[in-house]
Every structure is written in structure tokens, then in C-alpha cells.
């Protein structure tokens, strides 16, 4: 039996309501603490004098580059995962989305073993092309891409699955080749999910810490991103750490606001 309650007066049973309220407090109080304890007076001085600007610029640059690479490689991958009728596609999906659940530090170690100077691939990159990735800015981008790309792939793959195949069939009967269908019909149809996936990916890359510090280290101006700067500043200059954290919080809030309309339409075609 279900008790019928009007949509506006849906009563919340206390065994659900109380834990929900605790959860809300738990999530919001730390952020409140950050805002309350922020050195608002000296904020300007800290931002200008410390390495905040350098770290922020590096963070934005690397996160954007990582997102770009994720788009170029991840969207085709998402399409293959959603559409290709290959054996073992389920296993492939599990493998490429592993970084979603893998501890980032482990990812960093794995990247070192693969792209380090004596790594599986790294020795040839270094030996043949003179390319060294670890402890460089490109290394930061590689680490962030490794961690963030699966977010884009998972979001976009869901959209490819949910998109109405009828539109693609209609395009084909109008004479569009498969690439034209993809470019002129499929991609525009999943546009909202593409944006949502990119933003998720970018936000994840921006906050990346574990894999980056493991693979790229901590060189101010070269590999020191904002999260790493925050962690190190906490010991020497707590006020700067709080200021940097505020900057990241502001960026996150901006992302959330920008996504508010699209967040819930992930995977849905208009």
C-alpha cells in the first residue's frame, strides 16, 4: 500500500531525512570553513606576490590541453565503444575506463614505467626523438589526460548510445557517407553531452594531484599546478594555501553554474 500524498506536500520520513541533512552539512561545512577562514584582507597581496599566478596559468593551460587531447582521441573511442560490434568490446570498455577508479598515484607510477626515460615506450621516445616526458610540462598534460579522459569517454559514450539512430539512418538515405553522418548529424545531436563531458574532463584535469606529482614532480613554473602548490603552501604559508584553494573553489563553482542546465541532460539528445 502506498499512501497518496500531493506532489507539493511529500513528507520525508525521518530515517531518510536525518542522514540526508547530515550529508548536506558534511559536504558544505568544509567549504564554508574555507570561505570563513580566508585571509580576505591580504588576498590581493598573496595572489600577486606568491607563485599563484604562475601555478594558475600552468593549471589552466595543462587542463585545457588535456581536454583537447581527450576530445580528439576520446570522442572517436566513445563512438567505437558505443557502436562497434566487436568481440571483447565490453572488456575494452572496462580497461579504458579503469583510470576512473584507479588511485591517481598508481596512475602516476604506471605512467613513469611506461613513459619514463627507461620505460616501455619512454626509452624509444628519448632514444629516437629526444623526447622526455617526466618532470616536464607536457608530462603534466599526459598525466592529466590519463586521469581525465575516461570522464569524457564515459559521458559521450552514453550519449552515443542514447541518440536516436533514426536520424543517422535518415541522413544515410539522403546520401550522407558515414563520416558525414557522424560530423553533421551525430555530433550536433550529442552536443550537450559533449559539452558536459568536456567540462567534467577539464575540471578533473584541473584538480589532478596524485598522478601529476608522481609523474611530473613539482617544479614551479614548469610542473607545479595549483593543487600541488596548495599542498606545499599549507606547511610554509597557510594563508597562501587558503587563497589558492579559494581560487580553485571559485573555478569549480563557475563550472557548476555553467553546467546547471546541461548536467541533467547528460546522454540525452534534444
Amino acid at each position, binding site marked *: 500500500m502506498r499512501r497518496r500524498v500531493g506532489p507539493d506536500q511529500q513528507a520525508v520520513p525521518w530515517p531518510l531525512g536525518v542522514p540526508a541533512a547530515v550529508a548536506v552539512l558534511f559536504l558544505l561545512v568544509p567549504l564554508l570553513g574555507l570561505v570563513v577562514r580566508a585571509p580576505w584582507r591580504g588576498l590581493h597581496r598573496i595572489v600577486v606576490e606568491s607563485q599563484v599566478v604562475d601555478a594558475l596559468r600552468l593549471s589552466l593551460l595543462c587542463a585545457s590541453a588535456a581536454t583537447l587531447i581527450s576530445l580528439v582521441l576520446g570522442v572517436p573511442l566513445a563512438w567505437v565503444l558505443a557502436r562497434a560490434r566487436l568481440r571483447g568490446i565490453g572488456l575494452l570498455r572496462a580497461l579504458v575506463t579503469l583510470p576512473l577508479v584507479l588511485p591517481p598515484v598508481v596512475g602516476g607510477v604506471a605512467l613513469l614505467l611506461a613513459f619514463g626515460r627507461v620505460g616501455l615506450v619512454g626509452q624509444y621516445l628519448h632514444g629516437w626523438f629526444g623526447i622526455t616526458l617526466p618532470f616536464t610540462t607536457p608530462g603534466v598534460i599526459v598525466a592529466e589526460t590519463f586521469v581525465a579522459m575516461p570522464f569524457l569517454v564515459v559521458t559521450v559514450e552514453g550519449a552515443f548510445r542514447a541518440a536516436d539512430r533514426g536520424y543517422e539512418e*535518415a*541522413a544515410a*538515405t*539522403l546520401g550522407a557517407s558515414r563520416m558525414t553522418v557522424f560530423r*553533421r*548529424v551525430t555530433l550536433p545531436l550529442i552536443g550537450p553531452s559533449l559539452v558536459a563531458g568536456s567540462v567534467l574532463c577539464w575540471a578533473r584535469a584541473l584538480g589532478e594531484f596524485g598522478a601529476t606529482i608522481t609523474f611530473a614532480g613539482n617544479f614551479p613554473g614548469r610542473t607545479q599546478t595549483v593543487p600541488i602548490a596548495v599542498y606545499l603552501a599549507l606547511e610554509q604559508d597557510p594563508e597562501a594555501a587558503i587563497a589558492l584553494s579559494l581560487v580553485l573553489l571559485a573555478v569549480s563553482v563557475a563550472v557548476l553554474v555553467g553546467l546547471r542546465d546541461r548536467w541533467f541532460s547528460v546522454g540525452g539528445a534534444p
Partner: protein
Amino acid sequence: MTGPEVLDVAGSLDRGTFRLDVALRVEPGEVLGVLGPNGAGKTSLLRAVAGLTRLSSGYISLGGLVLDDAEARTFLPPEDRPVGLVFQSYLLFPHLSVLDNVAFAARSHGVRRGPARTHASEWLERLGLASFADRKPHELSGGQAQRVALARTLAAEPRLLLLDEPLSALDARIRLDVRTELRRHLHQFGGPVLIVTHDALEAMVLADRLLVLEDGRVVQQGTPAEVARRPATQYVASLVGLNLYPGTLARHEATVGDVVTLDAGGAVTVRSQPGGADRVLVAIRPSAVAVHTRRPDHASPRNVWAGTVASLEQLADRVRAQVDGVPPALVDLTPAAVAELGLHPGREVWLSVKATEIDVYPETAAV
């Protein structure tokens, strides 16, 4: 082009336990209506011709062009077929304007944006849609969307036109107008046209010839008039509103006429039949059945049977009574007659039909 472009289909396709088995020809300029209940395989047929599904066996050709040949492993993908398909739900691209929807085919063939749009405008003009060019599909009414879908398909300049339930998504109010207009466009199109529908009236009005599909098989082919007069199955009979009884013909002397023993029970006396099959179909128009409250003794005793009124339904200007009996029958009466006879569900009545009003034809002849 080599000669007249006839659409020729002879093949089958399997989908799970469902099997579609069909052979048909459509001449240039001819509109073939494929009529059938849901799940009969109508849409599968269209998809196979458009190249969205492969045949399991057999072939599809258009003039000299082989579209699909299962044995020869020839399969032309949909984008390479000169075939236009108007989808049931239209599937206008929601992110493109009406103009760009109609320009889509030209753009896909590498025409630059400008010329493609000019070409599309001409088609919009032709279909009276010029004022909707800048709208998005969600800003169109059902009838407008239907015309845009037709314009988009025609703008691709196909040599064969396919339409899937073209009017089913429309309100009954505007269906008549759109149907009249669609009929005009279909007859202006020079190539073969295949139109799929489960609406008998739509099929009768739009098509030159009908093909009835049931359970993946062709059960009847003919002109709309032939199909309406001599339906081959209960499904077609119910669509065109006829009583249809399969039965077995027994010959008697010419003076008495022949007697058909009906599978549904009872027997009817019919005009003497020329030789042929013993298995026949008996078609009786509902308006040819007379209703009496007492056994009619003045009439010839043949073709009189008792029944009970099961239901009464008001249709436009007449009342259709469903009478349970041996056999059961649909009967059309005027509202005045219903009042005069005092008919109501449960009422016992007598039915009679003149032998001259009964149409008898061999069971297989219509197929």
C-alpha cells in the same frame, strides 16, 4: 538511364522468428500501396529497399541497378542508393533549420552551402513551404513537418520514392488536406512509389495498386476497387467493412442455385457459380443484410437465420449492428429503422440476404 526504371523485389529477410517473404514490381509512375496490420513486415520491406536492412535471400533491383542480391553478395549501402525514404516520424534534423534540412542531401554530395541552399529554396517554394525556411523542426505543425520531410526527400532527387505511414502522425482534422496534396506530389513524381500504411482509406486514395501483407506474406494484390470488393482475408474485409465468410461450395441444379457451407457455421444459397475451386469466400455488404423482428415468411426461405443483437454503434449517418448468430454478421441500418424495430443489445432478430447480393469468389483467386 537504361530503359524504364522498374522496382523489382523478390526476396526474404529473417528477423528472429519473423520472416518476410515478398515479391513485387512497381512500374515508373505507379504508386503501390502496401497495406497490412502492425507487425506484418511493411516497414521491414521499406527498410530493405532503402538499404537499412539486408535481405536474407533474393534480390532488389531498380531498372538495371542491383540494390541487393543476397546470393551474389551484392549490397549497395543506403547512401549509394538513388532511393528516397520519408520516415513515419519524419526524423527532421532538430539542430538544422528547415532550409538546411532540405539542403542536407546536396551538402552530403559535396555541393557548397550557397548552391545547396538555393536548390533547397526551390523545393520549399514548390511545396509551398518558402515561409518556413528559417524555422527549426520543433516550430512546425505536424502537417508542415510532413511536407518538409517530403521536400527533403524529393530534393535528393531519388529515382524511387518510399513512404512509411506518411499521414499516421497527423491529426484527423488535417489528414484530408495533406492526403490530397500528397496524392498530387506522388503522381508528379516520375519514378516508382512504394507507400506503406495500415489505413485502408489512405491506401485506397493514394495508391494505384494495393498489396496486402500479413504475417510477412503477400495475401492479396489488386487495384483498390478489386481489393475493396473482394477481400481475401478477414483483415482486409474488416478494413473495407465487409462480412467475409470462408466456406465450401456444393453445386446444385441451376434453378436452385449453389449452396456454400460456411466454416463459421450455417449455409448460404448463392447464384450458380461457374466451375472452379470448391473453397470459396463469401462477401456480404452490411447494408445488404435485412433485419426482421419475426421470421420473414413472405420472403424466400433461403438465407434467413436467427441471431441476437450484440452491439449497436453509430457511424456517421447509419447504425452498425453486430449480430451474434450462425454465422455472425455486421448489419447497417438507418437510425429510423433501429427505432422502428426497437433494436437493443440482447434483442432476438432474424436476418435475411438476397442471393443476388452475395458475392462469391474462389479463395485463392485474389492472391
